[in-house]
C-alpha cells in the first residue's frame, strides 16, 4: 500500500538531504518567512515544506500531478485536515507504547508490536471511514487512487483477519512449536505451529490418539519457568520478528501519509493567509526545460507580502525565450524584490504549489541558485572579492543546465571594469551551459555589453523612476542607463544634489 500523494509513483523522501545551496537560498530569498507562514505552529509541517520547496521537481507532469492534488485540498480543506490529524494522532499514540528496557526477548517484542498494531489498525479503520464518506468528492489522480486503494485493501474482511491474528498471537490456548534434534540433541529449528480450531480442541480436551507425554513444572522451580520462557521465546522468535516488522511497515505507511499530507497542510495554511490579505494566487503553467519561458502578470514577492500589511506591487514580464534577464535602474526601485519574487515563484512552482501571481508560465528548473551581495567577512580572513569568487565557484560546481541563477550586485565589490569582466565571463559560460540567469546590477559596462551582444536572448528590465525621481517599484522593459540615479538617493539624504555640493 502506497500513499503517493506527492509523486505519482514514489514516496516523498522526508529525510532527503538539503541541496548544497539551501542555506544561501534561504538567506537570500528570505525563505523562513514563507516556511513559517506555511507551518503555522506545526514544526513537523515546517520540516516537510522546507524539503519540498528546496527540492524542485523537473518534470512538468509531476508538477501538475501535485497541483491537482493541491486543488483537491483547497476544495476540501476539512477532509484533508482530518486525514492529517488521524495520521499524526496514531504516530503520537504509538510513540507512547513503551519499548521496554530491553529488546532481547521475543515475548516482549511481540507484546509491544501487538499493541502498536492495535493502535495502527484502529487508525486504518478511521481512514477507511473517511474514504467511504468523502472519497467520491475528490477529483485528482492522486486522491482518487489513494481513496480507491483504501477501499480495495482495507476491506471489512481484511480488517477482521487482522483482528483475528492480533488475538491469536496472544496465544490463548498456549504455544505449539515443533522442533528437531540439533547439536547435542538439544532442540533446534523451532517453528511456531498453528493448528486448526478442530485440532486445538483435540489437543486441549484429549480425544487425540497419538502418543504424548507431559510434565508439569513445580510452582517453586523458578529456573524451570525461566527455561520454559526461553523455550517459548525461541519458539515465537520468528513470529515476533515478523509481527514487529509488520508493525514497522504499517507505521511507515501511516508516517508517509503524515509526511505527504503535511506538505498540503502547509499549502492550505499559506493559502488561507493570502486569501485574508486578498493577494492573488494562481496555478502556474510549468514549461519543459527545453523551452525558455517566463511570462507573468502581477508577480509579487510572497515574503514581502507576508511581512507587510498593505498589498504589494506585482510585476508583469514577457520574458519567453530570454535566458538572461538583466535588471538595472534606480536604487531602491524594487530590483531586489523583483529578483526574489522570481526565485520564490520558481521554487513554489517547482514543488507543485500555487504561485504568488495572477498568471505565471515558466520553465521548470533543476534548481535555483543565488549569488547576492553579502556583508564583509567579519573575520577579515578574505577580501570581499575572494569571498564572492569562492561562493561563485561552489555554485558553478553544483549548477546544472536549466537551473536558475539569481545574481544581485555580484562582483560589485571590485571596480566596475574588473567586476564586469569577471561577471561577463561567468554569465556567458553559464548561459552556454543552459542556465537561466537573472542579474541585477549597477554595472553599466556589463549590462550594456550584453545588450550589444545578446540582445535577442536577453531581456533588459529597469526599475521604473518617474520624472520627479519617485519610484513605482515596477520593472519596465528598457535598456540599461549609464546612471542608477544615485543622485536621487544623495539628494534625499543630504537634501541637496551632489553637483550642488560640488559647485
Amino acid at each position, binding site marked *: *500500500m*502506497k500513499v503517493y500523494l506527492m509523486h505519482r509513483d514514489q514516496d516523498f523522501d522526508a529525510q532527503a538531504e538539503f541541496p548544497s545551496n539551501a542555506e544561501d537560498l534561504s538567506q537570500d530569498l528570505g525563505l523562513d518567512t514563507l516556511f513559517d507562514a506555511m507551518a503555522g505552529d506545526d514544526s513537523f509541517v515546517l520540516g516537510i515544506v522546507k524539503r519540498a520547496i528546496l527540492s524542485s521537481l523537473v518534470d512538468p507532469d509531476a508538477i501538475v500531478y501535485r497541483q491537482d492534488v493541491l486543488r483537491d485540498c483547497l476544495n476540501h480543506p476539512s477532509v484533508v485536515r482530518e486525514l492529517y490529524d488521524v495520521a499524526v494522532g496514531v504516530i503520537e499514540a504509538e510513540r507512547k507504547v513503551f519499548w521496554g528496557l530491553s*529488546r532481547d*526477548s*521475543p515475548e516482549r*517484542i511481540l507484546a509491544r*508490536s501487538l499493541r502498536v498494531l492495535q493502535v495502527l489498525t484502529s487508525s486504518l479503520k478511521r481512514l477507511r471511514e473517511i474514504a467511504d464518506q468523502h472519497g467520491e468528492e475528490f477529483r485528482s489522480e492522486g486522491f482518487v487512487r489513494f481513496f480507491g486503494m483504501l477501499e480495495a485493501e482495507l476491506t471489512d474482511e481484511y480488517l477482521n483477519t*487482522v483482528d483475528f*491474528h492480533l488475538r491469536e*498471537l496472544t496465544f490463548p490456548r*498456549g*504455544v*505449539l*512449536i*515443533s*522442533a*528437531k*534434534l540439533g*547439536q*547435542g*540433541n*538439544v*532442540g533446534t529449528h523451532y*517453528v*511456531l*505451529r*498453528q*493448528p*486448526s480450531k478442530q*485440532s486445538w480442541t483435540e*489437543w486441549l480436551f484429549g480425544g487425540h490418539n*497419538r*502418543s*504424548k*507425554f*507431559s510434565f*508439569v*513444572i513445580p510452582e517453586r522451580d523458578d*529456573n524451570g*519457568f525461566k*527455561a*520454559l520462557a*526461553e*523455550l*517459548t*521465546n*525461541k*519458539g515465537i*522468535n*520468528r*513470529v515476533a*520478528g*515478523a*509481527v*514487529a*516488522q*509488520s508493525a514497522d*511497515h*504499517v507505521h*511507515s505507511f501511516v508516517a508517509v501519509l503524515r509526511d505527504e499530507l503535511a506538505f498540503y497542510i502547509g499549502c492550505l495554511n499559506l493559502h488561507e493567509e493570502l486569501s485574508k490579505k486578498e493577494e492573488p494566487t494562481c496555478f502556474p503553467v510549468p514549461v519543459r526545460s527545453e523551452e525558455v519561458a517566463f511570462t507573468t502578470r502581477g508577480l509579487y514577492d510572497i515574503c514581502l507580502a507576508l511581512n507587510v500589511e498593505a498589498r504589494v506591487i506585482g510585476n508583469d514580464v514577457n520574458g519567453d525565450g530570454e535566458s538572461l534577464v538583466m535588471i538595472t535602474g534606480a536604487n531602491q526601485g524594487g530590483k531586489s524584490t523583483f529578483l526574489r519574487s522570481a526565485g520564490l515563484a520558481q521554487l513554489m512552482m517547482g514543488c507543485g504549489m500555487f504561485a504568488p501571481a495572477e498568471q505565471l508560465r515558466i520553465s521548470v528548473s533543476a534548481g535555483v541558485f543565488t549569488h547576492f551581495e553579502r556583508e564583509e567577512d567579519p573575520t577579515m580572513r578574505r577580501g570581499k572579492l575572494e569571498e564572492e569568487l569562492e561562493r561563485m565557484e561552489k555554485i558553478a560546481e553544483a549548477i546544472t543546465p536549466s537551473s536558475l541563477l539569481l545574481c544581485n550586485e555580484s562582483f560589485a565589490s571590485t571596480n566596475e571594469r574588473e567586476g564586469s569582466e569577471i561577471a561577463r565571463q561567468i554569465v556567458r559560460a553559464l548561459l552556454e551551459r543552459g542556465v537561466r540567469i537573472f542579474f541585477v546590477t549597477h554595472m553599466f559596462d556589463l549590462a550594456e555589453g550584453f545588450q550589444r551582444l545578446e540582445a535577442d536572448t536577453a531581456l533588459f528590465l529597469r526599475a521604473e523612476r518617474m520624472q520627479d525621481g519617485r519610484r513605482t517599484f515596477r520593472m519596465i522593459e528598457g535598456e540599461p542607463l549609464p546612471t542608477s540615479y544615485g543622485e536621487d538617493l544623495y539628494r534625499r539624504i543630504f537634501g541637496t544634489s551632489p553637483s550642488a555640493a560640488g559647485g
Partner: protein
Amino acid sequence: MQFHSILFEQPADRVDGDAQDVPSSFRDLNLDQVLESMVEGREEYRLEAFFYSPLTAAEPVLYRHETLQDLEKKEILDSVTDFSESMRRVRAHLGRAAKLRHKYETERWFLDAAETYLAAVNTLKEKLALCELGSRALMGLHEYLEAYVLSPYFSSFAAETQKVKDELASVVYRVHIRGSRVEVSPYGGEPDYTPEVEQTFAKFRQGDVEDYTVRFVDRAGMNHIEAQILDLVARLNPAVFGALDDYCVRHETFLDDTIVRFEREVQFYVAYLEFIERFKAAGLPFCYPQVSSRSKDISVRGAFDVALANTLVPGERVVCNDFHLEGTERILVVTGANQGGKTTFARMFGQLHYLASLGYPVPGSEARLFLPDQILTHFEREEDIETLQGRLESDLVRIRDILQRATSSSVVIMNELFSSTTVKDALVLIAAVMSQIMELGVLGVCVTFLDEIASLGESTVSMVSMVDAEDPSVRTYKVVRRPADGRAYAVALAAKYGLTYPQLRGHVTS
C-alpha cells in the same frame, strides 16, 4: 617401512612428549619471539618440544625439506590445514561430550565428533590422492590413510555413524506449552504460523525494516527443562535412541594414534610456513639451505634477522646481508658504527643456523650452512648489570662456561664482550678468549668495538657495519666484509641531534 611420523623418518628419533629444555641461546637470538609468533593459536599442539630439538645431521634435515617443499604447494597445504581445522572440531566435540551430564546430549556430541573425524580422514585421503606428492613423509602418510580407510573397521564405523545420524535427523517432535504444563508428542503436520502473519501484513511492506529476531547464544549444555523434553522425545523414539546408546558403547575410542600424531606434528611445518608467508609477500626471500655436519665452508646471501623483521611495520625496509667463511676462516669479527646493525647481524648468524637445524627454510636467497651440535651465545644481559666489577666478573663466568661446553662442532656468538672494562684490559681478555675459540675451530661471530680483534689470525674475518657515504649519521645496516677502519661515527651522530660545535655556536649567535 610403515609410516609413523612426518617429522622423523627414524622411529628412534621421535620426540613424542612435551617441551624439552630451552636451548641456552634461545633468548639471545630472539628465537623466543619467533616461536611465540609461530605458535600463537596453536598452543594445544605443544610445538615447543619440536622447536627445542634441533637436528644435528643432514639426512633428517632433508626429510623435513622434502616435506616442507610439498607443503609449500597450495593444494597440499590447504588439505592439511582443512584437516587440522576438522580435527580441532573433533577434539572440541569430544571435550564437550566429556563435560556434559545428560546421557543423550553427551552421546550426540560424541556422534558429531566421530562424524567429523570420519569426514576429515576421508577428505584428506581423497585430496592427497589428487596432489603430486614428492616427499617420503607425505607419500607415507597417504599410503597409510589409504589402507586405514579401506580397513573393515573404518568402513563399518562409517556406515553405523551415518545410520544413527540419519535416524536422529528424522525425529521431529512438537512441544505444547501452556502455563506450567509441557506436552511432547510427534509432529502432526500443523502449518508454520509465521508466513501467514507475514502474508497478512504484506500489503504494507514499505522497503527494508529492522530485523527483530533475537539471536540466542548457545549455552554449554542443556537446562533441565530441555533435558526433560529430550527424555520424552527419547521415549517417543525408543529405537532411535537405543541405537545411539549401542553405537557409543562400541566405538568408545576411535581416534587413530598415527593420524593424531601427524596432525600435531604437521603443525610444526604449517606454523613456520604461515609465519614466513607475510615476509615472502613483502618480497623477502627464504631458501632451503644446503646443510652439512662436516663442512665449515658456509655462505649466505640476502639474509635478515627474522625476529626483527617480525617487529617492523609493513612497508618498513628490511636490510639484507651476505657473509661467507671458507678454507680456514672460522670467525666473523664485526666492528663499525654504533647502532649500525652489528648485533642484528650476530643474531641473524645464530638464527640462520638454528632454523637450518630445525629443517626450515632460512631467511635469505641462498645459503650453505653448518649443522652445529649446539649454538652458544654471549649477549649482554640487562639484569646482570650491577657494578662494573660485577659485570666483568659475570662476563668472565659466562664465557668460561661457554668455552667448557663448546666442541669443535659448536657455533659460538659473542656480542660486545667485555665492553664494560678498559680498552687495554678488554684487548687482553678478548685475545685470550679468542685464542681458545680459534683453537677449538668453532664457527662463530664476535661483535666488538676493538678493531684489533678483526686481525687476530687467519681464521678471523673482518666485517664492518656501514654508514651512508653522503651522510654519516645515516646507518645503512649493511655489514660488509672489509678491514676494520675505526672511523669516528660519534660526531655524525651528535650532528643529527644538533650538538656539534658549529651548530651550537650558530644557535647561540643567532
